[in-house]
């Protein structure tokens, strides 16, 4: 159990993890730094959904990230 918790903290620190967290506006995001949206390579996986570095994000998430709202 403990092992998984540590991994979860690690993943939040990953850049795209941080971006997704920002896009969601979660409190944990305040601790993390964003990166330019150009780093994102998204592939569409369904209407309005994209697979980005393992994350499943919405078009609105990507727009928010691209507009540096995060």
């Amino acid at each position: 159990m403990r092992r998984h918790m540590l991994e979860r903290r690690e993943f939040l620190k990953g850049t795209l993890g941080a971006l997704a967290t920002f896009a969601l506006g979660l409190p944990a995001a305040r601790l993390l730094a964003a990166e330019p949206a150009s780093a994102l390579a998204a592939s569409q996986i369904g209407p309005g959904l994209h697979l980005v570095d393992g994350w499943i994000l919405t078009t609105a998430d990507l727009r928010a990230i691209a507009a540096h709202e995060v």
Partner: protein
Amino acid sequence: MRFDAKAADRGGFEEVYDVCVIGGGPAGITAARVLARSGARIALMEAGGLEIEVESQDPYVGENVGLDYFPLDTSRLRFFGGTSNHWAGWCRALEPVDFVPKRYNPLSGWPITKLDLDPYRAEADQILDVPNESEAPNLPFAQKEYRFHRFQFRWSPPTRFAEKYLDELTASDRIDLWLNANLVAMPMDEAGTKVLGATFRSYAPDDPGFTVKARYYVLATGGIENARLLLALDQQFPEGIGNRADMVGRFFCDHPHFVISDVVLRAPSQEREYFMPTEEFLYENEILNFGLRLEPEYYPPETGLTDALIRGAGCGRDFGERLAEKVLGRELANCDLGGVGAWWETRGAPRPEPLAITRIAFEQALNPDSRVRLGTERDAFGLRRPMLDWHMSERDIHTMRTAAMAYGAHIAEQDIGRLKLRDWLTAEPAEIPGTDKDEVGGKHHMGTTRMSADPRDGVVDADCRVHGTDNLYVGGSSVFSTPGHSNPTYTLTQLALRLGDHLTGRLSA
């Protein structure tokens, strides 16, 4: 009555029993009890004693030559009560769809349906002490969702078969329970169609052994051992017993258990949720059945100093007494820091972060090369040790990826949260974690003597009788034709009850 093969007079074995049941775990004990109800005389032969011992556990030692798996002598227990001595009690019957063949999973499906097992639900509930089914209905979704059902497990306390049934079996005048009796040979007629006896030895090196004769024999020694014994009892037929079609030991599967994604939720939650695919989604994506668990990060609730002190009073007791309570599953006081550990560790507890993982347990695709074979080393009885060659297939990876993606899509669409697939799962090829990194399997050993209508496709028929034999049956999850995603003991208990009924019918014919 109860006997110990180490000490007892074996003269009693002049008697021809109605049924000789080999293996005193959930399957064997259940079958024996049903048969005894009809007045049949049963020999219930158990290899171990009443406690775990080095010498009785040793024949379970084997080799893993396939995917990383647990040591074979730790994932099962070889004494009275069998692996129920440390099972965890997760229960759920198979789904109707689990019995149905799927084009994309060759040989899948059972020669029976769920309706054949349903009549045994009430008694299986009672045996496993699980609450009535109506207490655990599937849960609706708040939103429209075609991909998943929400489902619930039911929980056995967990029932320890040895503890629950030892007195009843000892008092029975229908069942002779033998401890420390290891099956070492099974003489058959020349054609290999009829078992003539079952030979047992105790652990004494010079024990010549003794043979139990019965009209019918049930092999119920666990999902790996049933196959290993059929293969290793090769004294008469080089391929072993019931293995003309070379099917014994093949199709080994577990329910692989892996953390497949991390999740950020909109709001913190402390509730575990379980999801499984709808039939529509299963067929559309050509995947196999799975149970997906959303497990939010757990935060123990804050414990006040007064509460901690009150609970900590229990810490003054003897260590042995506390250990006994722990073994019995009682919640113990946290005795760190002289009994105030719970207060110290949770003081000023942070607000839970909205984090979770998803863990999958799924049905593997049938694979004849995933199998139990025999190694070259022999155990103390001269029988070749088991060798497990466990595999996962592309279909298995596809099932995990599809489940993770679909759940990720669900929570993004509903804005419940966002999900990230674990890197090992998105890697090409997938880098399956080993036992040092993840749970890997449920220690559910299935498929190695699978049930099939056609003798070329499996080992036992729809009545659990070994194809081509007249009086040899198999009990346990090794007979599962297709494993579904639910933990196996509930289903194998239903099957043992059904087997008991079948043999009762044959005995009275």
